[in-house]
């Protein structure tokens, strides 16, 4: 994953000057915004797909991009990295998208379909158990194990201390263990 330090203040400043008024991204404005988002696009995509499912992923990403574009001038580097800011927006959009149907994701949306790793029935069991987690625990698991962030980055996205992120992950694993006890004890 590309480091957030590659985003320079001058780029953020350029973004702040251009396209004021929240209009449609176009021309140089859009190019600058794309460059700004590009290092984090993969993580945004992974988080959107994990939280909203494959079918709604693109809608969530589009809404997140528009929100990021319209709010770009409110980004404050002292409050967090660009990555944590963008992933926070994706998480919010996914929450809006899946509001009221969190427990009803099609499991094949979560199943990555990879040929390596656990067998299919294990993957399904794990995904089913993850969906049952409390929202904060699930977010920590998704960000750490599936999006591929470090504990520090997970803490940034969730707006919590690094130690809290570690304990949240530990609690989530304990909860998952209880859910999967019959299969893995």
């Amino acid at each position, binding site marked *: 994953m590309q480091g957030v330090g590659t985003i320079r203040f001058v780029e953020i400043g350029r973004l702040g000057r251009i396209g004021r008024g929240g209009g449609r991204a176009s021309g140089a404005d859009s190019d600058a915004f794309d460059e700004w988002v590009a290092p984090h696009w993969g993580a945004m995509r992974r988080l959107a797909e994990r939280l909203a499912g494959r079918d709604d992923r693109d809608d969530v990403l589009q809404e997140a*991009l528009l929100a990021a574009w319209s709010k770009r001038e409110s980004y404050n580097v002292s409050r967090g990295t660009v990555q944590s800011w963008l992933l926070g927006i994706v998480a919010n959009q996914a929450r809006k998208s899946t509001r009221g149907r969190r427990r009803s994701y099609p499991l094949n949306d979560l199943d990555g379909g990879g040929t390596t790793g656990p067998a299919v029935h294990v993957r399904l069991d794990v995904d089913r158990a993850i969906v049952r987690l409390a929202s904060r625990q699930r977010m920590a698991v998704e960000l750490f194990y599936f999006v591929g962030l470090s504990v520090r980055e997970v803490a940034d996205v969730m707006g919590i201390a690094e130690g809290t992120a570690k304990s949240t992950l530990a609690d989530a694993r304990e909860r998952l*263990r209880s859910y999967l006890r019959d299969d893995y004890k």
Partner: protein
Amino acid sequence: MSDDIHDLLTRRGAAWRDGLGPDPDQKSMLARHGARRRAPLVAAAACVLVLLVAGGALLVRESSHRAATNSASNSASCAAPAFGDHPNPTTPDFGKRVSIGARTPGSAVEIYGRFYLATCADTATRGSPPGSSAPMTSVVLTFVDRNGQSTRLATIRHNSAGSFRVQIRIPPAAPAGPAILRDSAGHQLDVTVTNR
């Protein structure tokens, strides 16, 4: 046990990421988003435009219909026949009587008439000119004294527009009192016969 879960999740996450296809195109997604976001606004604007155009067309149609009707009415001029003792007599309002005043027996009176038309093309269809009107024929002016005695005064000779001018003479033997001048179509003028 927790390490087992950690290992399981780590392998599961790695496998999931490996199974992902390519990322969607970021630039096209942002560009598409603008159009998608504006789609309801565009649709609403289109509806408003359609309504405005349709409403405007109806107004134009109604306006032109009224214009045609007004034009037809003006040109056809379907007022009832009017006659009197001065040029350009007007059709009296319904129920009102018109008087030419006091006249002595044997005096001459100029009588003018308008709108003595046999047909009236006061309805025209849009795009078609109003129909032509034909003057009346065989219009006779009659004097009726207070005793109901009738005297034929003149046969009206009007032009093609239904207007005429004719000089009549109050019958010399007419008794004093109220009398009328009447045409064969039933229109009439009041006249008072005096001996002075």
